[in-house]
């Protein structure tokens, strides 16, 4: 990420963390992940 604008780098990290939260929440409720 060294070469990205800072705002874009922060956005990527926020999306990463949000995605992880979604997966954790789905797994916590016992939901089955959709196959890719």
């Amino acid at each position: 990420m060294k070469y990205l604008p800072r705002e874009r780098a922060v956005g990527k990290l926020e999306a990463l963390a949000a995605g992880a939260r979604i997966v954790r929440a789905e797994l916590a409720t016992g939901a089955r992940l959709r196959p890719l």
Partner: protein
Amino acid sequence: MLPLLPTTVVGSFPQPEWLVDRAALLSGGVPRVPKPTLWRVPEDLREEAHDDATRLVVRDMERAGVDIVSDGEVRRESYFAWLAPALTGLDVTKPGTAIARTGRPTPVPRAVGPITRPKPVLARHTRFLRGETDHPIKITVPGPFTLTALTHNEYYPDAPSLALAYAAVVNEELRDLKAAGADFVQLDEPYLQAWPDRAREYGVAAIDRALEGIDGPTVVHLCFGYAHTVRDKPSGYSYLPELERCRATHVSIEAARSSDRSHPRRSSWASWTWATRASRRRRPWRVESGRRSRTCRPIASCRRPTAA
């Protein structure tokens, strides 16, 4: 305890414009020897500026919700160029030449004598980062294979000997990083992918020497190179299953931009990390981090990608 699917960065983060000349950084390629003209801050004020830039990175990562925080490598001109000047046996003032993965000649350190590390290099920076966050922290160091690939060897009899010499000093540095509070240490080894045939000769031996006696999570990172400098990404990894037998507990790969359809999450994750076979046999590690302590377990539920 870290959550399921803990998030982190590979290592680097954008450096502020007040700290580096970003236009020069973007146009100049990846430095393998020091390039002090990149810094906007005079040398006598640079350490303080690096500390302040680190604080900004930590706050950005914490606010974004990242679980394992790094210093963004904001003190470095590149992931690579900071180590050689701190070692003996290497000349960075009259660089040699190596062929980068792009196929272009690049100035690199020359090995002119026995490589030793007179004193710790990143210990203070690690203690500083440790004091800035309660999150687990990760510190990255270039790995011995990549260091060897980007060194003009005029002293050691062959590349494996040079790699083991580098591995010994990297091992000393990793021990100091752990003592200074690093929870995760990572070897950056992009040239394992760039030079897979040479990697099969001595890559794992060099990595294992570098990680000898290092407790807790240890990561080896591979990638295709900075997206900014390497535009044509290969279709998959040429060197990956070999790392299952190395001493590292985790392997981290870049998955973004890869067109490898064998990766189950090839386009949806920027990069991802999974536990090696050696790690899955081990007990969980106790990670003391700031005021809290956590138990880290291997990410056994992660599916391993099929190597190309």
